[in-house]
């Protein structure tokens, strides 16, 4: 399993001769940072022999926003809004990861209702994030309409979030010690209504995109990531599960109340092609939406009464000295927060282990040999958020 990292090899310009004295020259294409299908400002330098990609190299940093430096300069609680902004599609999950890490140093436990509310809203946010992944993946493949359908349902979710915390995208709702506030009256009913609506819509997506013959042709057997490669490169989340690895932090290292919920861990099974292809990654996301919906329902059923926050946590937090790493299952994979405290009100170090960053590092190595259109499909199936890869 000694797998040395293959060098991308874009650095020397090269020509190669093929038979019949036809001299071909590879084309170097610069894809991004402004390109419709790089999901933000990723830049991929592709060397292509006609339509075939022979080498690829990712360039990051076009959205580097110094989140980790800011973490060392602002208060523990002041940092919370920055967590919203590095993975803006799943801001609740980021709030949660950071809050859990801080709570680990604080040594406090959130009251049961707070934990249930957190689980509920994190799963809702996972649905919202996967909806975007689904919609934009359709866009990458060339189908425009799924994107709009996904946004229609996402707006319903954003209404729910807005009702509980007032923001559409950057919530800062889950914070060290609990959540910002209790659910307003009628909110849980609202969530239930959404579940009923979404249940009806989900099969439409499945039929519209996932079972579409052209979609299957475009994604099945494309960008295959074998199991051991995915593990060795530190892939997590749907990227890892799409390769058939049965690993989900929610089940295997349960946090919040996940050990009280029943759900299935979805893994890629090669439904239309080989295990670990782009189709499987999308398939995992699609089915995870259903699982998340199930979890939301269970949270609604089990929702206890009581406080939502720990009473001792104020605006100025002084965690005990020490260091804590907490990894949670973000929609994109394992989102880790490694915080180091010296007992003061400002952190020594806030390290974010961003799942997209790790997942993306593999992408340039599976691209060679595919076609140009597949390169787009592979990037899309990785479901990256550039705010998170660059932080």
């Amino acid at each position, binding site marked *: 399993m000694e797998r040395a990292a293959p060098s991308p090899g874009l650095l020397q310009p090269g020509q190669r001769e093929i038979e019949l004295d036809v001299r071909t020259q590879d084309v170097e294409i610069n894809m991004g940072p402004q390109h419709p299908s790089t999901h933000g400002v990723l830049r991929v330098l592709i060397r292509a022999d006609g339509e075939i990609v022979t080498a690829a190299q990712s360039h990051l940093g076009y959205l580097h926003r110094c989140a980790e430096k800011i973490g060392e300069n602002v208060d523990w609680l002041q940092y919370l809004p920055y967590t919203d902004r590095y993975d803006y599609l799943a801001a609740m999950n980021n709030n949660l990861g950071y809050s859990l890490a801080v709570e680990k140093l604080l040594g406090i436990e959130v009251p049961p209702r707070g934990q249930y509310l957190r689980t509920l809203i994190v799963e809702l946010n996972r649905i919202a994030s996967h909806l975007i992944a689904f919609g934009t993946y359709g866009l990458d493949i*060339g189908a425009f309409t799924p994107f709009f359908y996904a946004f229609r349902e996402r707006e319903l979710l954003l209404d729910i979030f807005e009702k509980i915390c007032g923001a559409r995208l950057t919530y800062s709702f889950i914070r060290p010690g609990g959540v910002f506030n209790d659910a307003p009256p009628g909110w849980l009913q609202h969530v239930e209504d959404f579940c009923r609506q979404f249940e009806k819509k989900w099969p439409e997506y499945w039929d519209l995109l996932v079972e579409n013959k052209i979609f299957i042709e475009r994604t099945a057997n494309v960008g295959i990531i074998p199991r051991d490669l995915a593990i060795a490169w530190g892939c997590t989340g749907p990227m890892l599960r799409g390769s058939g690895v049965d690993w989900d932090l929610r089940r295997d290292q349960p946090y919040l109340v996940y050990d009280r919920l029943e759900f299935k861990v979805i893994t890629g099974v090669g439904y239309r092609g080989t295990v670990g292809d782009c189709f499987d990654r999308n398939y995992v996301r699609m089915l995870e939406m259903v699982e998340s919906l199930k979890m939301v329902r269970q949270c609604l059923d089990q929702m206890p009464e009581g406080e939502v926050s720990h009473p001792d946590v104020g605006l100025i937090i002084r965690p005990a000295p020490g260091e804590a790493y907490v990894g949670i299952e973000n929609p994109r994979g394992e989102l880790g927060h490694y915080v180091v405290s010296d007992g003061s009100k400002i952190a020594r170090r806030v390290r974010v282990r961003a799942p997209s960053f790790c997942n993306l590092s593999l992408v340039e190595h599976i691209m060679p040999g595919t076609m140009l259109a597949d390169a787009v499909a592979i990037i899309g199936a990785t479901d990256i958020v550039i705010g998170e890869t660059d932080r």
Partner: protein
Amino acid sequence: MLTDPVTAAAPAPPQGNLWTDLMHGVFPDGMPWWMVAVLGAAVAFAAVMLFVTVIAMFSIWLERKVAGHIQVRLGPMRVGGWHGWAQSVADGVKLLLKEDVVVTGADRLLFKLAPALVLGTALAMFVALPFAPGLQIADVDLGVFFLISISSITTIGVIMAGWGSNNKWSVYGAMREAAQVASYEIPLGLSLMPPVIYYGSLSLRTATDMQAGWLGLHWYVFDPLHFWIAIPSFVLFFVAALAETKRAPFDLAESESELVAGFHTEYSGIRFSFFFLEEYAAMFVMSAVGAALWFGGWNFPGVTQMPEGALRDFLCVVVFTVKSMLLVFVMMWVRWTLPRIRIDQVMTLGYKYLTPLSLILVFAAAVLEYFLALAPSVLP
């Protein structure tokens, strides 16, 4: 800019059509034949230009509305008032006013010539369309052949645009277009053969005339003896036409998610609007060919049986345009529903499936005609 080669080559049409009749009305003593030809060509050009612009603008507006409604939104609503009807006008005027960028390092001649060539071919195709019994600019004997051969010239324009732009994305788009059109010419041409065999003529006028009759039963697709060939051949034609007009799922030449904007990445303003117009004009032409060969052209129950005259001609134009626009609508519907195919899959589909299928259909159509010719008395 454009002189119609066909009209110029056929100087004195044997029967008077609308334009020559008009000219004779103005000059009762008759004009020299060349003046008739030149003036006729000029009027025809103006008419085609106007018609194409109107149709293309309407199609663009329709596309945005169709896309909007398929995507559970509304599409243009404000510009001009009712459902944004003036949206295309605003777009057109704005594109006229935009700065016309010619890229550094571009092949200036090709870069500037390409949009004109592309739009010119689109206009030329309208010449052979039979809008009404008295309204066809030129009844070309080789009508179908003329159309498909002219439509491939568009590809040359696209390649010129792609090459001249000094942009890698554009070159990719152009090369994809070249490969795609070269491979889909064959199924496109072959899928037109069954109706041609049925009508025994390449002329669209003859084809339309042969589909006259009560109800739609004389239309090729509904013909009781031929529908089993007509329907598959129409489907083949439609798929090939989608590829020929660069429409989704075959819009590889400008595939937005891969090639930014493909061959017209570097085009702005008026030149870009030429490509835009051409796309919709070509869609209309392809749909019109489909309507003329399979769906009875201008024939419609009630309209066909009317006495000849201006009213009938007008209604025929309406019928023909509506039929074509319905097919254009189907093209839009397809575009906003399906994902895009990859280039190798496009080739596979073209060479391995569409070409053999169309050959089989041609063969079947020929056999059928042979037997029908043998037994004319027993069959209706």
